[in-house]
Structure formats: structure tokens, C-alpha cells
């Protein structure tokens, strides 16, 4: 068994995946489905999860958490815990005082945003179930967990508020001293929406509203969060191991929060078992562990239990979306108005306020329109904070626009594909500046849609749908459509600055040419499943003309990879991967000077191809990049004045976002007698531009689909009226298994991005962003002829059944009534009386 990818193996793989053959040069690695270098350790159990770490004198930390959502803390007494066997120390917030600092929020979206202090250990009040109140440190994890029960906390209950519209009444305040639960109002206007609406009304068009609910989700990365802090023997220095997506950002934030000089903190993200945004944060436990290790001078470990994580790790989504569209009678969109309420939870975590604001640029999606109005209101409730979860603001926006496009098609009696075609940006119109102010560099919605329709068998399925309706079949068929785009590859730093984000969006890479001819790539991205070791090797190997197996990639440690902005927002390839390419090109430029000197030729006459420098017109005068590397290391014979290195760094600040797009089609069968929806066919045609590794891309799409489908059909974080998390364990919160998901049909069109030299776009979140409206749209479509207009996510059998049978208010609504379950009555206005 060998990990080596010899030429024969590459040839065999290319044979299996003929799409990789059309490379001009048979030695190219980009575009090939090369198997991952990462796998060997992971499939044999030789892993480095944070919780695996054992250190001499390691202490274990357990957190005492609030069992109530909202209460005044009258007293915390840890003294009884200190008497328990194995207990080394126990602390309340008061015991640790200012050393804990307050947790950072790096995205104050407005100047007047309400930003309450967020203490790692609660001081005067707790504001959500699971908030940390005290910490116990013991010799092993069982002793620490046992002793948490001995910590006495006197809670004086305060009222909870879970519903955003209730919260906005400011009758129950989450932060009494702030006087309001409204975090911010973030407005955007493109064009004049009122004028667009008036035009629709005057010209006999259509104006109607919908309310869609983005339920709260729990990210549930398979590896629970974990942190180990090791104080170094000399001075105030620490190594922090954390299951984090952001070692570089975490290092800075820990330094600022705890008042430890940044150069004295090293953060290592060892193997990290998934993140999906939930590990894009600075968490209380990371700060507490650092403070405890600092105070006691010994290493400490904390690993969350899954149920603990469900309360203490950020949640995602949780929005009320009121959306209104104004269109002409023939289906041209004149204007779109979005009134968003976004649940922050009880506190602002690292980027909590910015997540719904990211959606502002995506509600208009791929469609042309004259006017767009967006209002987002952030709201505090007594629930776990929300923050980035796969897609982060864009899935929510995509859901609303794709649902209302299909609803508009119903209202106008136009095929939903045809309606989209009448409104989308045509391929010859790129680059196109949208009503939301973004410039989409490239796209071909026609091509992706045509391919998806073909794979799906759209016309046939529509015929079958009609037949089932005609014969009143108990099993009805629905078709859901999502012609999505998204903005990713975060991001041009100037744009982030204009949105008040606290950092830039650049990414760094370094190439180190070793004397033996091997290559080290240092990247600032921090993979946790995305396969950067493999993909960055492919990029570097092609740019340098070296074998794939000669490249190693270093990441996830602020000491060995000191400069980086980490991995989130589908940014790694389009920013970090491109930076690798740019750094490699700089290496070649430097090496060319050395090669010219060695070959006694003018630099301008030296050509580089496939790892070899040669002199124009002198076929025998050649040297390899490996030879140049060794010659530079020896430095015996370099051009005068040249530094003895061909290593190079690149830091790329992207000129634009990346705009992947695609067309996803879903066919769902609904058993009208039981309400059970079953996905029959799912077709995803994605356009992510040029592809580095199709195997990895397909895996990203599959995983994204699974999470988007899970939102549509299965997952919901449910709170009761007292703000207890009812779905507090994996028993209650349905993360789908293999048996719950269908086989997907995936394909791609390739419209290269024009804003980076590799022509690549992000893919990490596309599947999640696209799939939710396709699935829910299909469920609704299956029963729309029965008068069902809306079914709340997740579209469980009970909700579907109730919607069909017009019984109860849990999530279904019928067009005839014009109401939906969540909130007050909605009016469906058709202007002009043309119906």
C-alpha cells in the first residue's frame, strides 16, 4: 500500500475521470481528481485532535453552566467543590476578576449598535441556558465533572424572551441596562422601491408579500470543541491548542482579551474535525482555559460534551423574513423589499451582527430589478448566540428569493423556470453591477440551467406531476427550483472596511524551496476537512513544475504559519490558494535570474516550462528548478548582489468576491395521507469556475447539500417558552444519517472567474445555500394545488399533513386564508384587478 502517486496511478485516475484529460500538458495536476494526501492518517486513527493531547501535569476543566435562561446571580460559592476528590481549584467570575476580560465582537455593523459586555463567566446575570458561571479544575475529567455539582449558585429567576417580535416590544429586556432588545437597524436602498411598487400598481402588475421563517440550527461539527493551554516554563508564554478554524485571529483576540502580549501566545489548530462556522469564534472556554493555566501555572484541557456544545457553541440562522415583490404582469421584477429580523441570541459573538447583513447583498440574487430595499433589525433574546453557520446570511437570503420567485410564478401562472429566465442576468451581460451594488464578474445561468433541466428530466416530471394531480394520487409530486448565486471568497479588505468589519480579507502564502529540491508551502488558511494539503500541492506543483508528492503544506500553527486570516466564507481557494499560485510565480521569477546566470544567458532568453529553465535557441542549455534551488542554497555562484534565496511570499487581497452559481432541481414525493415528504431526485449543477480537484469539489457539494436538505426537512433548535433548549441532545436534534438522505446527481458547468489568475470560485457553502429552497419549494409544489401556500421548515410529516388538512397552526398555511402560522395575518395583494 503506498501513498505515492506515480505516473501510472495518475494515468489510471485520469482514465476514471475523463474530464481531467483535456489538460494541455500531461504533467499538470490542476483539474485532476487526485486522491487526498490527508487521508492516510485519518483512516488509520493516527490523528491529532485537540482532545488527544496529553501533557505532564495536565489538569481538566469543567464548566458550571446556567440551567435557567435568565436570572440574577445572587451568589456563587465554589468552596464545597474544593473539598471534592481530585479538585485543584474552582473559580467564579469574581474569583478571576478582570483577568477574564470580555469576549470580542469584531463586527459592529452600525455606529450605534447596542453592544453589551459578554463576560466569559457570568457576573451579575445569566442570559441563556448553558451560559458559563463557574469553572472547576481537577486531576481528571470525571473528577472535574463530579465537582461541578458541588458549586452552589443562587439564581433569582427573571423572565425569558424567545420570540423576536415579543422581544422588540422591549417588555422583557435581555440587557436591562441597555433599555432595548434592538441591537441595530441596518438599512440599504438601491433605487426607489416605493416608485417600483407604485409602478407595478399603476400598470396592472402584481405586488405581494410573504413571510418565511429561518429556523434556528445547530452546526454540530462532528468534533466537539476542545482547548488545551500549556504555559511554557519561562515567563508569561503559552501554547494554546484549540479545535478552531481561526488560529491566527484567535491569537490576536486572546492577546487583546487577556492582556497577554501577542508574541507570547502561540495558537495551534491541530486536526480539526469540521467547523461549518461554529469554530470561527472566540469562545468563553478558550479565554477561561488560558486564564486558569496562567493563574495555576499548569496545563489545562477542556472538551465540551455534545449536549454542552448544543448550548454553548453558536447556533445559526434564526430569522423572520418579510419580503415583498413588485412585478409586471408578464413577470418582470420591478422591485424587492426585505424586512429582516435576525435573532442575535443573548450576546454578540465574534461576527454575530454581520451575518444577516451579509445577506443584504444576496436577496436580489441573479435577478435584474429597478429597486431594492433592505432593512435588517438585530434582536436580543435569551437564547444561545447565533453566528456564522455554513453559508452565513446567504442561505437565508437565497431561500427567501428563490421561494418568492416560485410564489410569483404561481401568482402569475408562469412556469417558474421561465419566470427566472425573464429576470436573470444574461451571460453576455457580465460583468454586471447588481442593484445591491456588487459587480458579478462572470456567470452563465442559461448553461447551468439547461444542463440541470436535462439531467433532471424536467418536462417529464412536470407531466407526471400533472397526471398524479389528475388522478388524485395519494402520493403527489412536487418540483423545487433554486437558480442560486452567492458571494464568497471573503473578501476585498476595502469592502470589509466599508461594512465595518474588524479585519481585512487578504491571505498569505510562502513557498520554501528546499536544497533537496522538495517544496514547502506555508499557507495562512486553516483546513478542517477541505483538503488544502492536496489542493495546494496541486497548485504549487503546477506553478513550479515539481512532482505533486514533493510538496508539503504547512498550516494551522501561528509559529510555523505566522501570517494568515484562516478558513471560512469559502475563501480558502479563491484567496489562499491563489496566493500560493502567486508566491510560486515569484519563486520562478527569482529562480529565472539564477538560471540565467548559471546558463550564461540573458534573463529574457530563459524560458520556464515543466520545471525546467532553458535558453531560447539553445536546446541543450537547460537546468531544473531543483538544480537552481540547490545552487541557491550553496550560493557559490549567484548573480552579483542577489540574496541567496529563491523563496517567496505573497499576500493577496482579492479584487472582488467570488460568485459561484448553479441550478439545483429537486423532486419530492409527498404522501398526502401521512404528510411524509421523500426526495426522489436531486440534481445539482454548480458553476464554480475552474476546478483544482474535482474529487474534493464533489465532496464539498455533497456535504453542502446534506446540510441544506437537513434544514429543509429535519433540523430545528427548539426552545420552550422559558427558553430551555428542548432539542438539547443528539437524540432530539435530528442530524441526518445516511438513511435520511438521497443519492445526489451532481454536475458542473465551468465559467471561470475573471478576477483571479486561476479562474476559480469558492465551493464550500454553495450546496448548502442552494439546496434548502429547492427542497422546500418541491414540498410546497407537491401540495400547492391542494391550497397549501407555505409550510414552515423543517417540513416534517406533521407540518405537511397539517398544511394539507388545514388543521392546527404549526407551520402550514393555505393560500385561501392568506395567513401563515408565525406572526400575524399576511395580505396577498394583487394590484390592478387583472386576475
Amino acid at each position, binding site marked *: 500500500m503506498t501513498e505515492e502517486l506515480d505516473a501510472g496511478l495518475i494515468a489510471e485516475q485520469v482514465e476514471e475521470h475523463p474530464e481531467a484529460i483535456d489538460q494541455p500538458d500531461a504533467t499538470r495536476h490542476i483539474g485532476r481528481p487526485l486522491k487526498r494526501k490527508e487521508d492516510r492518517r485519518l483512516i488509520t486513527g493516527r490523528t491529532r485532535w485537540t482532545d488527544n493531547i496529553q501533557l505532564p501535569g495536565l489538569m481538566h476543566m469543567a464548566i458550571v453552566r446556567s440551567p435557567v435562561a435568565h436570572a440574577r446571580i445572587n451568589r456563587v460559592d465554589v468552596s464545597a467543590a474544593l473539598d471534592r476528590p481530585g479538585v485543584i481549584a474552582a473559580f467564579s467570575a469574581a474569583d478571576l476578576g478582570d483577568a477574564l476580560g470580555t469576549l470580542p465582537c469584531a463586527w459592529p455593523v452600525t455606529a450605534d449598535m447596542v453592544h453589551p459586555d459578554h463576560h466569559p463567566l457570568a457576573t451579575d446575570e445569566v442570559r441563556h441556558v448553558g451560559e458559563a458561571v463557574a469553572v472547576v479544575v481537577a486531576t481528571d475529567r470525571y473528577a472535574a465533572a463530579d465537582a461541578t455539582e458541588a458549586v452552589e449558585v443562587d439564581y433569582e429567576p427573571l423572565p425569558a424572551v424567545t420570540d423576536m417580535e415579543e422581544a422588540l416590544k422591549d417588555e422583557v429586556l435581555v440587557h436591562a441596562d441597555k433599555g432595548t432588545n434592538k441591537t441595530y437597524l441596518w438599512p440599504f436602498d438601491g433605487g426607489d422601491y416605493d416608485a417600483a411598487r407604485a409602478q407595478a400598481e399603476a400598470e396592472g402588475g402584481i405586488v405581494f408579500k410573504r413571510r418565511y421563517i429561518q429556523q434556528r440550527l445547530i452546526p454540530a461539527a462532528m468534533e466537539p470543541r476542545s482547548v488545551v493551554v500549556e504555559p511554557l516554563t519561562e515567563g508569561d508564554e503559552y501554547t494554546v491548542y484549540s479545535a478552531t478554524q481561526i488560529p491566527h485571529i484567535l491569537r490576536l483576540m486572546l492577546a487583546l482579551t487577556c492582556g497577554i502580549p501577542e508574541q507570547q501566545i502561540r495558537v495551534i489548530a491541530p486536526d480539526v*474535525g469540521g467547523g461549518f462556522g461554529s469554530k470561527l469564534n472566540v469562545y468563553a472556554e478558550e479565554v477561561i482555559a488560558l486564564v486558569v493555566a496562567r493563574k495555576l501555572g499548569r496545563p489545562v484541557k477542556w472538551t465540551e460534551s455534545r449536549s454542552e456544545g448544543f448550548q454553548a457553541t453558536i447556533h445559526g440562522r434564526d430569522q423572520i423574513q418579510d419580503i415583498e415583490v413588485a412585478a409586471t404582469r408578464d413577470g418582470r421584477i420591478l422591485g424587492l423589499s426585505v424586512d429582516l429580523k435576525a435573532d442575535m441570541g443573548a450576546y454578540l459573538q465574534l461576527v454575530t451582527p454581520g451575518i444577516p447583513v451579509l445577506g443584504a447583498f444576496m436577496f436580489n440574487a441573479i435577478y435584474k430589478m429597478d429597486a431594492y430595499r433592505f432593512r435588517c433589525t438585530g434582536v436580543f433574546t435569551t437564547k444561545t448566540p447565533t453566528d456564522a453557520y455554513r453559508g452565513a446570511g446567504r442561505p437565508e437570503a437565497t431561500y427567501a428569493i428563490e421561494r418568492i420567485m416560485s410564489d410569483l410564478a404561481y401568482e402569475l401562472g408562469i412556469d417558474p423556470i421561465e419566470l427566472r429566465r425573464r429576470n436573470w442576468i444574461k451571460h453576455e451581460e457580465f460583468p454586471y453591477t447588481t442593484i445591491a451594488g456588487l459587480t458579478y464578474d462572470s456567470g452563465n445561468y442559461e448553461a447551468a440551467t439547461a444542463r440541470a433541466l436535462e439531467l433532471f428530466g424536467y418536462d417529464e416530471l412536470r407531466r407526471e406531476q400533472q397526471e398524479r394531480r389528475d388522478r388524485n394520487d395519494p402520493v403527489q409530486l412536487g418540483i423545487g427550483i433554486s437558480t442560486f448565486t452567492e458571494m464568497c471568497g471573503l473578501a476585498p479588505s476595502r469592502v470589509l472596511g466599508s461594512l465595518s468589519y474588524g479585519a481585512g480579507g487578504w491571505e498569505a502564502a510562502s513557498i520554501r524551496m528546499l536544497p533537496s529540491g522538495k517544496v514547502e508551502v506555508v499557507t495562512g488558511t486553516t483546513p478542517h476537512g477541505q483538503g488544502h494539503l492536496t489542493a495546494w500541492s496541486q497548485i504549487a506543483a503546477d506553478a513550479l513544475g515539481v512532482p505533486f508528492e514533493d510538496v508539503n503544506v504547512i498550516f494551522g500553527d501561528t509559529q510555523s504559519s505566522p501570517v494568515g486570516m484562516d478558513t471560512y466564507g469559502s475563501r480558502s481557494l479563491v484567496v489562499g490558494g491563489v496566493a500560493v499560485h502567486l508566491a510560486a510565480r515569484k519563486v520562478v521569477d527569482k529562480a529565472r535570474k539564477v538560471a540565467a546566470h548559471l546558463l550564461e544567458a540573458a534573463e529574457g532568453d530563459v524560458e520556464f516550462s515543466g520545471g525546467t529553465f532553458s535558453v531560447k535557441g539553445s536546446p541543450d542549455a537547460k537546468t531544473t528548478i531543483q538544480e537552481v534551488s540547490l545552487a541557491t542554497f550553496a550560493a557559490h555562484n549567484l548573480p552579483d548582489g542577489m540574496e541567496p534565496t529563491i523563496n517567496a511570499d505573497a499576500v493577496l487581497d482579492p479584487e472582488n468576491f467570488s460568485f459561484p452559481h448553479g441550478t439545483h432541481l429537486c423532486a419530492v414525493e409527498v404522501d398526502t395521507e401521512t404528510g411524509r415528504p421523500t426526495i426522489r431526485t436531486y440534481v445539482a449543477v454548480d458553476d464554480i469556475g475552474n476546478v483544482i480537484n474535482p474529487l474534493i469539489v464533489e465532496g464539498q457539494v*455533497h456535504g453542502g447539500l446534506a446540510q441544506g436538505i437537513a434544514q429543509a426537512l429535519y433540523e430545528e433548535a427548539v426552545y420552550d417558552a422559558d427558553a430551555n433548549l428542548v432539542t438539547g441532545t443528539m437524540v432530539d436534534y435530528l442530524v441526518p444519517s445516511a438513511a435520511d438522505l438521497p443519492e445526489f446527481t451532481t454536475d458542473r458547468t465551468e465559467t471561470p472567474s475573471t478576477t483571479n489568475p486561476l479562474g476559480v470560485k469558492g465551493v464550500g457553502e454553495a450546496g448548502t445555500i442552494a439546496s434548502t429552497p429547492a427542497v422546500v419549494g418541491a414540498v410546497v409544489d407537491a401540495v400547492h394545488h391542494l391550497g397549501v401556500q407555505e409550510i414552515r421548515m423543517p417540513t416534517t410529516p406533521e407540518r405537511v399533513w397539517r398544511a394539507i388538512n388545514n388543521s392546527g397552526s404549526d407551520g402550514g398555511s393555505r393560500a385561501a386564508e392568506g395567513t401563515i402560522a408565525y406572526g400575524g395575518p399576511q395580505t396577498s395583494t394583487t394590484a390592478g384587478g387583472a386576475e
Partner: protein
Amino acid sequence: MARIEVTVDGVSYHDEVEPRLLLVHYLRERLGKVGTPIGCDTSNCGACTVHVDGVSVKSCTMLAVQADGTQITTIEGLAQNGQLHPVQQAFHDNHALQCGFCTPGMIMASVDLLQHNPSPSDEEIRHGLEGNLCRCTGYQNIVRAVRQAAEKSAEVTA
């Protein structure tokens, strides 16, 4: 404290353990067998799946004392003489893992599945792995890997 004697990945251990110690904690924290991870606290995720006397068990559902006298195989003991087990190889060949956290349990459960059903249908694979959760792959490539491992085993025995 209770005395136990277990064989793990071919090495025999004699230990005194607290009666409440979970097998998975015994493996990870006492024996350093950290290849077997813990993904939940309700026995839903299956990340900690090992073989006890040849049968797959979620090692968080068993106490170390219950494992007394048994032979345990973990993901670390599955490859023999540097040769990957066909299921491990199939996971690599089919990109059936991303972050890799569920992978040890998923592979151990798949090996057990194929022992009981050497040529499962896709639906049987999906139902057979129902007790193992993956958040990265959407399962499609896992199903493909198990199917391919079954086909390759069938070729070998044919």
C-alpha cells in the same frame, strides 16, 4: 476499583478501573488509543465505534469493566502489516472522508456491516450505517466506498 483484562489491537492489558469508567475513556485516556474519538454523549453519532470480540460496539455505551476478558480492535489495529483494510482503502479511493472525525467509527461500522452482509444494496448500506453520523460528506461517497469494498472483496473470494 475493579480488575480487568482486555486485549486491544493485539496487546493484552491488566488494569484496575473505576466501575463507572466508559470503555472509550479507558481506551483513550488510559491506553492512549486516541484514534477512537468521542462525538456525542447520547450514543447517537457512532464516532467511537470499535469491535469487541469481532462485533461493532459504540465504545461510549459500554463500561470498561464490561469489556473484561474481551478482544477489542480499534481503528488503529485494523490495518495489518502496513496493509490497509479494504474498507480503509475504499474510503481513501472514494473520498469518503473530509475532516475525518467520524471516519474511525464509520470504517469500523462498515467492516462489521460487510461481515454480516457481504454484498449489500445501497439502501442496505445506508440503513446499516444509520448509527454513524457524518457532517461533511453527505454520505454519498461513504456509500460508494462500502459498495466498492464489497465488490473488491467479492472479486478476491471469487
